[in-house]
């Protein structure tokens, strides 16, 4: 590191003035050393906004129109896909690239103003949200959305919070999103779908803008910040999962605003009571909205405080950081104590499943999950696989090129004092975000396991907070070539497009558009009008709150459209038993199930997710290798005293009270 013959760092920061070149090889290995140093830490071009122009709209109106046109074509593609057009999925992805790439190209252009960059981010955020709406334009279709829809319906109907949600009991204790949605719905008369979509859209705009101002505070560059935000949109959870009507969609906005406020407070000369009050307000709101995100914020703030401690910050600043992190830890704990949340056991289950997955993965020296292949054997097309793999490789490459450069920007230095090496740095927030990227490979590896996949996917949401800024530093600090501005912008814009498309494929893959035909246990591909009509029938003719036993998808439909009470997943096991034995009778006695939904379509093909009820309840069971035996579902009809009260040719509803009564 002491050798400075290759490229010098640009701590002075003159635009595009990296000095030096490969020096003559002075000693063996110098060439190798210079090559590696060139790739990993030298040079770093100027990242400041020195060349940014005066505030102007620039290309923002034109790109808004391009985005809207791309969304319109995407809507046509979604309709074509419903009619079975095979080309439509590729065209749908190209529509997304059609506005992300030009937005990214313009964003990294050196003379683009800060004002324009903010608008470009808003346009990209709106565009991606509209893509999500085009995917599901008339109702909720994703699994988690139904869980929170049920909670919001309960609030609207009972005018009470904390009512038991049979679909996701823990969500009752974190009603932040549902409060905001129910409030808007009850005042405006909008449906939960419309009100929830507006709340999530608002939260999403806050989320992206908060990330921008956070990066801008840390790096001092609107160019790096805007590109970092676009890279963040390449996270596998960004476009669909975190845009769902689900508590983390709102919680992420609170997390980023709270982290920004913590950084702003540290940077301020004096502690401002106003900032602290706002921070308390936001952290408290987060604690009532989502448990995992609350703990993630607590972890981030604690890490920040620890770095400030070792940085040797002034006692008052250190005190502030420690106080804030302590508050961020205590508030969610206090909230879960106050409401009597079982969040601990819920999180414990997730960790247990993840650890189980990691163990399996280590035992099998790889992963038990076949990438890009569903449990039913359907494989993703080659172009999807290539894009997703390219996005991961690109991210890894950018992290390799940007990691040390970002550390350098954080002011990290290794000083030798006698026989000791001392680490010093000036920017704890940037250092923290850079270190956070170390969790990215972990999130990728966890995806190789079918049980660790979910945890890995969610971990990437946090990992990408660091990935965004580090990849932006690599792209603008190393890949950018001043002499070829147009080419550099185009390349970086195209790479941002690959990242975003790869993220979507990694997150939802084949489910990006709703399948034209019903698929067995495939969540969004299994939600269709006939099942909804059956659920409506139950609500109209049986009345609400009957206890129902059903498979994963019908649990969702009957709990929301049907307003029925689904039994616990574990108590639904009699549905899949070959006969009603003593164990099944005990289970039905316990759950007091009154009706069972018998969906014969479950026997048509292999369940896409590999299970019929839910992942948790069947983790000990082998994945289905052949479609469900129809006789398993027909057993209720052979039981004396059991009635078939509803029949639509594919689904029947059995009155099984005779089996559940003492």
């Amino acid at each position, binding site marked *: 590191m002491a050798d400075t013959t290759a490229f010098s760092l640009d701590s002075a920061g003159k635009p595009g003035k990296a000095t030096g070149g490969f020096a003559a090889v002075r000693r063996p290995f110098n060439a190798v050393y210079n090559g590696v140093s060139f790739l990993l830490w030298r040079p770093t071009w100027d990242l400041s906004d020195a060349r940014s122009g005066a505030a102007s709209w620039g290309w923002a109106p034109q790109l808004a129109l391009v985005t809207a046109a791309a969304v319109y074509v995407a809507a046509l593609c979604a309709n074509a896909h419903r009619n079975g057009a095979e080309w439509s999925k590729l065209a749908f992805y190209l529509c997304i690239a059609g506005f992300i790439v030009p937005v990214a190209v313009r964003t990294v252009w050196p003379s683009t103003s800060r004002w324009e960059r903010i608008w470009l981010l808003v346009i990209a955020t709106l565009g991606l949200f509209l893509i999500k709406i085009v995917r599901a334009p008339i109702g909720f279709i994703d699994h988690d959305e139904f869980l929170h829809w049920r909670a919001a319906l309960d609030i609207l109907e009972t005018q009470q919070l904390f009512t038991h949600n049979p679909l996701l009991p823990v969500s009752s204790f974190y009603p932040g999103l549902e409060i905001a949605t129910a409030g808007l719905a009850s005042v405006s008369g909008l449906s939960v779908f419309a009100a929830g979509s507006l709340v999530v859209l608002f939260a999403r705009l806050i989320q992206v803008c908060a990330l921008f101002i956070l990066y801008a505070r840390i790096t001092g560059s609107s160019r790096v910040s805007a590109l970092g935000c676009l890279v963040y949109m390449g996270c596998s959870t960004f476009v669909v999962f975190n845009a769902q009507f689900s508590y983390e969609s709102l919680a992420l906005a609170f997390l980023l605003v709270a982290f920004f406020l913590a950084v702003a407070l540290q940077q*301020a000369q004096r502690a401002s009571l106003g900032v602290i009050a706002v921070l308390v307000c936001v952290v408290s709101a987060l604690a009532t909205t989502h448990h995992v995100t609350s703990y993630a914020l607590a972890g981030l703030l604690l890490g920040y405080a620890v770095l400030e401690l070792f940085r040797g910050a002034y006692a008052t600043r250190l005190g502030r950081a420690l106080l804030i992190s302590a508050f961020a830890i205590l508030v969610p704990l206090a909230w879960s104590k106050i409401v009597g949340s079982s969040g601990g056991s819920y999180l414990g289950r997730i960790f247990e499943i993840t650890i189980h997955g990691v163990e399996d993965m280590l035992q099998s020296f790889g992963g038990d999950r076949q990438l890009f292949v569903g449990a039913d054997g359907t494989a993703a097309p080659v172009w999807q696989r290539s894009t997703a793999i390219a996005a991961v490789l690109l991210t890894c490459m950018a992290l390799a090129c940007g990691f040390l450069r970002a550390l350098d920007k954080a002011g990290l230095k290794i000083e030798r004092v006698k026989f000791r090496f001392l680490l010093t740095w000036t920017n704890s927030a940037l250092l923290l975000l850079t270190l956070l990227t170390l969790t990215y490979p972990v999130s990728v590896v966890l995806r190789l396991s079918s049980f660790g996949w979910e945890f890995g996917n969610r971990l990437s949401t946090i990992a990408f907070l660091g990935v965004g800024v580090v990849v932006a530093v690599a792209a603008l600090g190393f890949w950018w070539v001043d002499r070829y501005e147009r080419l550099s912008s185009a390349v970086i814009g195209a790479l941002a497009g690959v990242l975003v498309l790869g993220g979507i494929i990694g997150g939802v893959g084949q489910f990006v558009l709703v399948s034209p035909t019903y698929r067995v246990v495939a969540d969004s591909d299994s939600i269709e009008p006939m099942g909804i009509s059956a659920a409506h029938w139950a609500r109209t003719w049986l009345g609400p709150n009957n206890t129902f036993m059903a498979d994963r998808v019908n649990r969702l439909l009957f709990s929301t459209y049907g307003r029925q009470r689904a039994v616990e997943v574990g108590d639904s096991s009699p549905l899949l038993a070959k006969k009603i034995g003593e164990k099944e009778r005990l289970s039905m006695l316990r759950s007091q199930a009154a009706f069972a939904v018998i969906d014969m379509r479950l026997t048509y093909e292999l369940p896409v997710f590999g299970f019929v009820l839910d992942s948790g309840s069947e983790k000990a069971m082998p994945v289905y290798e052949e479609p469900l035996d129809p006789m398993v579902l027909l057993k209720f009809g052979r039981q004396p005293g059991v009635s078939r*009260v509803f029949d639509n040719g594919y689904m029947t509803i059995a009155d099984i009270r005779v089996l559940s009564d003492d």
Partner: protein
Amino acid sequence: MISCLIPPLLSGPGSQLAIAEGHVTAASALVGLAAAGVIWMIGSGLTKRALADTASNFEALVVSGAVALALVIGLGLILHGIGHLNATGWLVSIGVLAILTFPYLGGSIALFTGILCRRPHMSGRDALMLASAVILSVVAIQEARNGAFSHREFAFTELWLLRDGDKASDQFVLGFTNHERVTAMYGLDILVDGRLVDVWNGIEVEPGKSWITALSLPGAAGPSRRVEGLLYKNGDRETAYRRVWVESGA
């Protein structure tokens, strides 16, 4: 015994996806918009005051969005506590909060005007393009909605049979709804313990419509009695198209 044709609850299975739990009108939408606007004004006023020396206008604007959402959550918790978590409770509490924070509303005005005054000039051409983008986005969503509504994979008929009353009741409700997308001709058989007790033929039902009848079957509630309904379609009397039954034990 009565039988009738009733309009469907909804115009078709596709439209059931869009069922609205509420009924939005222009007035209620305006009230909702105004309530959301007032909450954001309150949030931005408080934020501007709190972050006066720490954050730029844009930073304060972003934070104010989160503060507004936090205020909504806080209000919701309070309304739950006092048992008024409904539209009236929301409107009154937002009004009270606006009065209480009135001195801070100046900060909100300063924040928004600060941003608006510094905005760069927008030419007529740019404004036209932005307006076109908004219109095109709305058209795109409408296009997607039309496509989703019109997509129906399954054509089907729902048949149901329910006992009207407790286990001892001999009153039943039988009905079916045509979701076949075309008008269909139906026939119905009612059996008690396998014995044919009633027959209907030539029931013509339009798509989306239901046919419902009340059945009085004296003695059908006795021990081991089974009331069964068989539905036939388009004159095919060989195979029952749909089949439902109610057992006395149920």
